[in-house]
């Protein structure tokens, strides 16, 4: 029994390492899993929906967030970073999901300090009309009212750092080209059960 014990321990360590690899793999997969790529067709033109927030000759960056989603912090940080890099060349508006009887969520207050207007979105009706299903969803509407980019600003769930979405928006705002017109969105689902279309 004594001679067998080292082998037993080694086997235990192998199983332990295997369990860790599996768990870390699952965690990484979850972290890098974006919201649904396919989006429902928009019923309204975002430029019309947010016409009140557009200034002539300026692009408008719209971000739809779920205030209680843990990834919202990272999305808001990245949006703030992006706006500071555009040096006022781009306007922004934040659409904040608001369920009934929710108090005002503090997470969006920081952007309000940066003079980014915050639209309260009861039950995610506006988000649905903008075609946003996942918290952190952004739309870049150019001066002509055309949606030039759609997607998220973070590289993974709750992860800060540069992302293809940021690079594309920055390039477009500065008048340059961008081959990237969409990016995965990492965040909680904005879909309200009552608004969700019945499964086909």
């Amino acid at each position, binding site marked *: 029994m004594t001679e067998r014990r080292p082998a037993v321990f*080694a086997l235990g360590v192998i199983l332990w390492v295997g369990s860790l690899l599996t768990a*870390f793999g699952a965690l*990484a997969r979850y972290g890098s899993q974006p919201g649904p790529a396919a989006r429902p067709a928009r019923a309204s033109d975002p430029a019309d929906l947010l016409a009140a927030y557009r200034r002539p000759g300026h692009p408008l960056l719209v971000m739809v967030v*779920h205030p209680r989603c*843990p990834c919202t912090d990272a999305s808001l940080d990245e949006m703030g970073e992006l706006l500071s890099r555009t040096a006022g060349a781009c306007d922004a508006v934040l659409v904040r999901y608001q369920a*009934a009887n929710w108090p005002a969520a503090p997470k969006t207050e920081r952007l309000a300090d940066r003079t980014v207007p915050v639209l309260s979105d009861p039950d995610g009706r506006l988000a649905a009309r903008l075609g946003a299903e996942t918290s952190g969803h952004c739309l870049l509407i150019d001066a002509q009212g055309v949606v030039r980019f759609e997607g998220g600003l973070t*590289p993974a769930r709750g992860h800060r*750092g540069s992302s293809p979405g940021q690079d594309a928006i920055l390039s477009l705002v500065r008048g340059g080209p961008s081959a990237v017109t969409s990016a995965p969105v990492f965040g909680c*689902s904005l*879909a309200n059960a009552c608004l969700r279309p019945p499964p086909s």
Partner: protein
Amino acid sequence: MKIASQISALSATLLPAPADPARRSEVQALFDKSERTVFARVNHFFVWLFWLQWAFGVGLAAVWSPATWTGAQSSMHPHLLAAFFLGGLLALGPTALIRLRPVDLLTRHVVAIAQMGFSALLIDLTGGRIETHFHVFGSLAFLALYRDWRLLPTATLVVALDHLLRGIWFPLTVYGVPYASFWRTGEHAAWVLFEDAVLIWGCLVSRRELWEICLRQDENARLLNEMERRVAERTLDLEKANRQLVEASREAGRAEVATGVLHNVGNVLTSVNLIVDDLRDRLRDSRVRHIRQVTATLQLQGARLPEFFQGEVGRALPGFMAKLGTNLESENEYLLQNAETLTAHCGHIREIIVAQQSSARRVGMTESVAPDQLVEEALLLNSESFARHGIELVKSFAPAPPVRVDRHKVMQILVNLLKNAKDSILSAEGAGRQVTVRVAAEAGRRVAIAVHDSGAGIAPDNMLKIFQHGFTTKRDGHGFGLHSCVLAAREMAGDLTAASGGLGRGATFTLLLPSAP
């Protein structure tokens, strides 16, 4: 692998080995023991660290990402589950191995894997914050506390694999870009290797220092053993010398008594010799021969005896005979007196010898004796000497209980004290010649016998040395007497003290003896 083997070889060469193979194994044993102590201490530290990190991770997830949302509906966030279960798994594995196999290398490798796993978990839980990546460098430093450089490659391998695999399959979660080159993983690993190089060097140096400490410990232990052996030898020598000294002192004490006895007997025998010489002269010159002459004269007269008595000589003969009778009576009385003196002297000698034999027979035996009886016997042995030197003896005996003593030892002490008193008086010219012996009960169930003399006294500087072996103020002394006396007194649970007002003021030696129960 080649680098690892080179580091191992370097590690071995950094440990200076003693030339003696036996010593090498002892130093190795000390080193192994020290290493086990280090392992135990760092193991203990890591058990705490693991569970603190687990609690921190759970708390972090509970605050930062407690729930995931679908509109207004929430469910538990996978991060919270990961912090609880994955963190728990990370902490549980090494904790169990530390409990079961604390010294195994495998255990330390598992600790290294778990610690780097916590780095990965915390980085994930904090959303890949660059600040949390410093946990990796802190963890490597913590692992270096084991002073085992082999753990650092393991930890580095875990970090490198984490970055490599995630760089391949989930690059966004580790580098923040959708596509990462292999060299980016290499760049991240290089910074870790940079710290590794420092820490491995630190491990090797600290191991060498530990080895040197063990070398010194071994040297100290050897020196200590050698010193203890020498101390034991010297102690045995000292005990032997002490026994010899005590025996010599006792012999000296017995010799003192014997000398005292012989001295006194010799004094008496001198008187006896004088008396015997006188008796011999008296007997040689005795007038008894005149009777023989008268008788011969009368026998020569024969028949003419009546005419002889008519003659001048015959008529003077009765007067001569009367005078001769008177002289013979006087002579007889003188001889009788001398015979009585001789008898007295012989009796005195007998008493001295009996007293000596009485004390000598009781060597090693304790008995209950009246203290004044002991003093009287001691005085008897010295009385002749005192008388001859005109020393006045004063006795002051207060009521005192019997003492439980070895009579021979007490006699040895008292004879010695009395002889010293006599010598002190004789050495001090012009001093009064008086010895006072006092007996009195003392506190603490003890009896004091004090011998005070009016002699030379003791200088204050000598008071502390008076009982030391070999110390003497006598020109022909050997310094055994008082030393053996104090030893003998202490062997009987008593004591001997000295007091003096200084030179020329006499001295008092007090023998304290335990009273009989």
